[in-house]
């Protein structure tokens, strides 16, 4: 059996455990956060499915897919620009990486604005957390909670992109930090892949 502890790099010579699975601790921490957050979103979607099954008058209020298709395209594209940022950072192209990070943040802001516009349109039609003109009031609660949780993640991601991008340009962060942030941003994109079909497309008015 190999050594399980090492004192290399430890402050005051104290032994520290080697990183599990041989990856950086901050990257491991982000993966653990992503796993935990997956459970949060999965629980929300399962609860949504539960009340949707149980309601006889579940509304189908979405008449157009244009907005949600555009939002999906923007978020998927922002994942690609985040990958470009990481590749530039690993190639030590600091201005290029910063530019791609800011493009990703701009895409996130655009996504959030489209999302808020959609919310406002639904609110204008009379939909609130507890009631709507089309059917059971549970629809508003589940729609706003799931999409709101996702929008919160996007907002936090945009703030993180700007902060990490600026600090990366200033030399305080490196390519590893971009990679960890990229994991979070791709996760936000991944969640949207489940939100779109279940919350929007299954509730499309035919």
């Amino acid at each position, binding site marked *: 059996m190999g050594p399980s502890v090492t004192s290399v790099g430890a402050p005051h010579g104290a032994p520290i455990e080697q990183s599990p699975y041989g990856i950086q601790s901050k990257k491991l921490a982000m993966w653990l956060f992503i*796993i935990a957050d997956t459970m949060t979103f999965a629980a929300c979607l399962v609860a949504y499915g539960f009340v949707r099954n149980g309601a006889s008058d579940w509304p189908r209020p979405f008449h157009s897919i244009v907005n949600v298709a555009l939002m999906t395209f923007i978020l998927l594209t922002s994942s690609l620009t985040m990958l470009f940022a990481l590749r530039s950072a690993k190639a030590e192209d600091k201005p290029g990486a910063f530019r791609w990070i800011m493009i990703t943040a701009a895409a996130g802001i655009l996504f959030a604005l489209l999302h808020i516009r959609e919310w406002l349109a639904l609110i204008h039609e009379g939909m609130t957390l507890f009631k709507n003109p089309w059917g059971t009031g549970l629809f508003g609660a589940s729609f706003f909670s799931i999409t709101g949780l996702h929008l919160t993640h996007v907002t936090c991601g945009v703030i993180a992109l700007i902060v990490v991008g600026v600090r990366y340009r200033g030399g305080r962060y490196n390519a590893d930090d971009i990679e960890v942030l990229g994991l979070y941003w791709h996760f936000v994109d991944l969640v949207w892949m489940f939100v779109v079909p279940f919350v929007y497309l299954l509730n499309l008015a035919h």
Partner: protein
Amino acid sequence: MPTAERKSDGIKNDLVVYVCLLALAGLQFVIAYQHIDASHMFLRMLAVAIVEAGLAVMFFMHLWTEKRGFVLFVLIFTIFVLLGMQFGWTDSFRMVSGAPFSK
């Protein structure tokens, strides 16, 4: 391989995965307009979403390049808990049929 060449190859791979994800997302919109019942539509969309998520996790999040032990840890732990959440579906269908709580 020089850094620039490696970066160019990497970008090519990223673009391929991106196009696949766009196509799969488009497929979900096509499924939404099929004249099939809701349960079939749900299953088809779920299947496409799982493939999308798999591509994103493996290639965009680079899980594929991590150690095998870590890949297994993430996948087994996540899938186990996600499956564990599915125990209540029968109860949701009981609500549709309007059966009393005790049944």
